[in-house]
């Protein structure tokens, strides 16, 4: 499942890149910074990416998912730092660990 989620996020990031001036360095894979330190996204781009990932996950796993909510915002370490951290967070959400 981890692989699959990572693929989804990277493919959504690539799609979003077409719209961005500061592009997500998707070639870094899981290490690609998103938001915050070293990140390239502004808040709007982050919202756009997160919602697109939500929708893609819904299609793929047939489960409704809210990634960006108060829970995500109050995590000790932000799930939005990198592609990898986002992927881990989504996995935990799907497994019901958060």
């Amino acid at each position: 499942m981890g692989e699959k989620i990572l693929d989804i996020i990277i493919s959504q990031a690539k799609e979003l890149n077409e719209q961005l001036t500061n592009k997500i360095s998707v070639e870094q894979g899981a290490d690609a910074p998103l938001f915050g330190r070293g990140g390239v996204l502004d808040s709007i781009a982050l919202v756009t990416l997160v919602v697109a990932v939500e929708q893609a996950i819904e299609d793929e796993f047939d489960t409704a998912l809210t990634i960006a909510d108060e829970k995500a915002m109050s995590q000790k370490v932000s799930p939005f730092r990198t592609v990898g951290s986002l992927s881990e967070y989504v996995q935990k959400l799907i497994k019901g660990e958060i």
Partner: protein
Amino acid sequence: MFTDFLSDIFSDNREKDALVWQDRKYLYAFLLNAFQDWRKKLDESGIAKNSVVLLEADFSPNALALMLSLIEHECIVVPFTTSVKSKKAEFCEIAQIEHIISIDENDMVSFEKIYSQADHDLLRQLKERRHPGLILFSSGSTGKSKAALHDFAPLLEKFKIRRNAMRTLTFLLFDHIGGINTLLHTLSNAGCIVTVQDRSPESVCKTIEKHKVQLLPTSPTFIALLLLSEAYRNYDSSSLELVTYGTEVMPESTLKKFHECFPNVRLLQTYGLSEIGIMRSKSESSNSLWMKIGGQGIQTRIAEGILQIKTPSAMLGYLNAPSPFTQDGWFDTGDKVEVNGDYIRILGRESEIINVGGEKVWPVEIEEVIQMMPGVEDVAVCGVKSPITGQMVQASVKLNSDETLSDFRKRMRTFCKDKLASFKIPQKVILTDHAFHGGRFKKMRIGN
């Protein structure tokens, strides 16, 4: 007394068509008779003068005659249509209804006494003035319906000035300020009211052809629907001279397309609200969204970008909400406007602004762009909560193909890229298969 000017007009035009109802024509002679008849019957009916009366009806011979008779009987009329059927009990309670008059689809009339005594302060004030009244409920697309109480006497004033008589289709509903305005405007100029059974593009076009309709008062949503349906291609609409639209913001794309399809029809933007009646307006040109609003005794001013209006035909107040008037008597419309000399342009309801991370976004601006995309049948934009940016922009889109969400989203982003600032490009997209307007053909935008 209050409707004498109408009786005079009716008797001067006895042989003219007053109404087309269920494809049958009724002359002014008929209407005058029915009106006088109901005045007598009301005197005998046990409905005391100044009673609050719910008139459940649609445009029909008896509905017209009864509406005028109730005004003459100094009653406070609450027009009511089946479009809000589920709210009847709520409306009766808020408006402190004393009598219900129902007119069914065969124009049969029935009376019902409700055992209550209208003692709301505003109602009492109006009763003491011995003036007829009008209560209009706001559509309540956002939140609870508000009941606006008008003194009918000043509302009737503007209809005493004679204007063009036209064959007018009653598209706007009987319980809507626009519908009441159409009714009084048409009758006070000896025009003809043409009613429709249903308000689909097909049925409207058919009626325009059959009864040579000249004026269609409608909404931008219906105009967009009409253009999309292409129903107008199957009918002769050459009688049509003027289309008026109000109630919501017109997308520029719809305006342009309308002129391409109907090069000989004039478009006029009107401005009106349940609370202040319909203003006279003058568009800068037929294809412009800039307009001047005014009319007898009407003053306008802009405060912090919001249009405020002072008019003698303003309501007395809400029956169930605090007064929206400023201390010096101006009505705050809640409509954000742009100003250019004498002209203004309505941007939208202040309450519909989406705030994306501090940036303001107007739904209509985005709808306009998305509406231009091939395959898009309808679109409604609203704000939904986002813990990151406060709100984000959500577009609900109805497509006429089976394009997938992911394909559409890609195409939409590319399409919008050079047309909208990045924060305005919908972050969330939903595909749906239903349309976004209610029975009033006004766009519904639901968000949080």
